[in-house]
């Protein structure tokens, strides 16, 4: 017995030594790499011509697609090596913020849109890029997503997200339903589906962000798109306005069209319901198209813009992300070259084809019928998603308050008027025009 313990200990010790040595030699490689970098920073060694760029992002699902982007980039820039290193969506902010605060981080990173991302610029973590080529083609609205209060541009806008209702064409045909063009028709469609025993709207209230997203769509129907939004963002109207309260009430009234147990359903559940043809409509963003396709390639579906009470139709849009350069990057020139590449038509076309998303670059068309129709709608009749564009400051943010209180409303804890009241109270502390 004693002997056995002795051997066991000896074995453990040997293992330890091996691993320590292994880990040490690892370390050795590291420090060697460090010194290599040091010399290239001084810039003089001829053998170190290849610059290496790293890109940080929350788009873990796009690894394969970015490989194609990088391959296209390398056709014209063979000397710049690029590595796409995404972090899981929910941890991205923590990881990026931590490394930026320590003066490290990737050379290029995916910037969250509007105030959330601009906070990084205000802290001095982001390199101004107003001087790079290709920025002038974008519309001012798109550039605004990454323009600092100092007037400098901090990011190249990548894609436009739009939210609208998707609908199952087969179910609509079977039930003899037309795409609604007014709010009343929209309600009528819901009622008919409900009578036919079909869940009208695939929607769940378990995840708060789905609620602000849906209000972005449905609210535009009640508030007639830009008519109210324009006055809200200038401070001429506020959340206590009867029209706004009505939009919250409309959200509440839609609950009867949601699936059973909607308070327990999240993103994955409602997507599945729609893709498996168990619900007729799906209020969500353009980015869901490839995911729904993957889940059920045979699904025959289309979108319709939200019809308003005044008879207008809108899709709700915003810039979903921009690419920015780390102010502490050692390869700023190469990074700028890459960002300029992101403004080219060649990239735009590859992006639309591969990512199945709407490019921020104007005039890029897609072979995908759904996507190209959606792009047209975005250019002709869009309304801004003001929850993301204007109401993401404060603690908690006004957008967060909307999400939490709507959740409370669906659970019967607060009334629509109280939701509006709480929004107003929060916005008065953080939204400039209300102060």
């Amino acid at each position, binding site marked *: 017995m004693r002997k056995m313990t002795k051997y066991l200990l000896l074995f453990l010790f040997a293992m330890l030594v091996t691993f320590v040595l292994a880990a040490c030699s690892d370390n050795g490689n590291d420090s060697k790499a460090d010194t290599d970098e040091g010399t290239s920073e001084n810039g003089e060694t001829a053998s170190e011509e290849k610059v290496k760029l790293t890109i940080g992002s929350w788009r873990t699902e796009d690894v394969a697609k970015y490989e194609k982007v990088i391959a296209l980039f390398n056709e014209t820039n063979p000397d710049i090596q690029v590595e796409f290193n995404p972090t899981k969506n929910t941890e991205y902010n923590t990881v990026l913020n931590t490394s930026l605060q320590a003066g490290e981080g990737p050379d290029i990173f995916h910037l969250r849109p509007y105030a959330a991302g601009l906070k990084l610029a205000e802290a001095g973590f982001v390199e101004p890029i107003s001087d790079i080529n290709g920025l002038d083609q974008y519309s001012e609205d798109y550039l605004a997503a990454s323009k600092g209060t100092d007037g400098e541009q901090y990011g190249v806008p990548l894609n436009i997200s739009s939210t609208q209702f998707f609908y199952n064409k087969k179910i609509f045909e079977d039930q003899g339903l037309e795409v609604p063009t007014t709010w009343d028709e929209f309600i009528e469609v819901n009622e008919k589906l409900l009578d036919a025993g079909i869940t009208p709207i695939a929607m769940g209230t378990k995840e708060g962000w789905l609620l602000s997203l849906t209000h972005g769509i449905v609210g535009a129907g009640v508030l007639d798109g830009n008519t109210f939004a324009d006055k809200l963002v200038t401070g001429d109207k506020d959340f206590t306005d009867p029209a706004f309260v009505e939009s919250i009430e409309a959200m509440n009234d839609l609950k009867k069209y949601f699936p059973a147990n909607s308070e327990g359903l999240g993103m994955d559940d409602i997507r599945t319901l729609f893709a498996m043809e168990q619900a007729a409509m799906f209020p969500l963003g353009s980015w869901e198209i490839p995911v729904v396709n993957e889940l059920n390639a045979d699904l025959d579906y289309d979108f319709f813009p939200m019809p308003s009470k005044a008879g207008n139709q809108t899709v709700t849009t915003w810039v979903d992300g921009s690419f920015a350069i780390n102010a502490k990057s050692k390869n700023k020139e190469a990074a700028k070259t890459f960002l300029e590449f992101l403004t080219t038509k060649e990239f735009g076309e590859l992006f639309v084809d591969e990512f199945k998303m709407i490019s921020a670059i104007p005039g890029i068309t897609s072979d995908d019928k759904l996507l190209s129709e959606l792009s047209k709608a975005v250019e002709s009749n869009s309304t801004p998603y003001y929850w993301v564009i204007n109401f993401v400051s404060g*603690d908690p943010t006004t957008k967060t308050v909307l999400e*939490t209180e709507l959740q409370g409303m669906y659970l019967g804890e607060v009334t629509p008027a109280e939701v509006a009241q709480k929004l107003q109270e929060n916005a008065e502390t953080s939204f400039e025009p209300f102060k």
Partner: protein
Amino acid sequence: MTTVQTALKKKGRKNGKRWTIHLFPIPALIIYSVFVLYPILAALTYSFYSFKGFSRESFVGFDNFVTLFTTEPYGSMFTNAFKHNLLYFGLQMIVMNGLAFILAFVIYKKVRGAEFFKIAFFLPRLLSVIVVGFLWKLILNPNFGTLNMLLGKLGLEELQRAWLGDPNTALISIILVNCWFGLGFGVLIFLAGFQSIPGELIEAAKLDGAKGMTMIRKIYLPLMIPSIMIMTVLTFIQSFEAFELVYAMQGSMGEPYYSTDTLAVFFYRLAFGSSTSGSSDAIGLGSALAAVLFFFILICTMIFLKFTNKKEVEM
């Protein structure tokens, strides 16, 4: 109880290099101080500063602490989360530790297949919390989840519900998942405790004619105090630090409608912002909350340890 020191003294100078004993705690202390104590203390000082975005602005004394308790919505969020932590502790003590104690006793009594059961109980503990959260979210799913389906098959339709979406059941569901996760660890600790009870004591008690409940009350329970103490302290600390599972299952907002919010989730939200809407301005407030949480746990643990130490001495 004779301590080792007295034994050492009796022995005189046979051990010339007695000072070397003081080297024993050094390696652990160094690594622990550098990589845990230092960063935490450094970050705690943030609680005395105001922040704008990421930049530290000015020294504000105890302002952040005052804000935390007197300004809405922080004040009510704090009380709300605190109550949830209390429930967390209570339920875990009763369900998890209670069951673990019984199971450990059963295994100690040598049921057939003890090996298998020990492994079975412990297996969930091997999974990463992310995996645990994901699996249980699926099982508790209202429309295609196993639990509701099972209830349906048993004819208990009225019990079916959106377990994680209903504020009345969401927190309890998460705590029970935590119990599922931590049960095996409790069994191991208690089992190790039972097995450390000197066999002679049990033999002696049996010879004295003790059996059944008397045996448990007079022999097992008192001798199990060290492991009960360990589990209570650990459960207390883990309940008040509850974060990973809540975050994995309900995100950083304590959804639905703050019904699953805990102090540590609240802290995370303040210090790191909600995951989708970017960072918040509240690094100072977040640090203040962490400090409050820290002192609360510290004081409670101290009181508890004092209490059990006395008990031990009495024995």
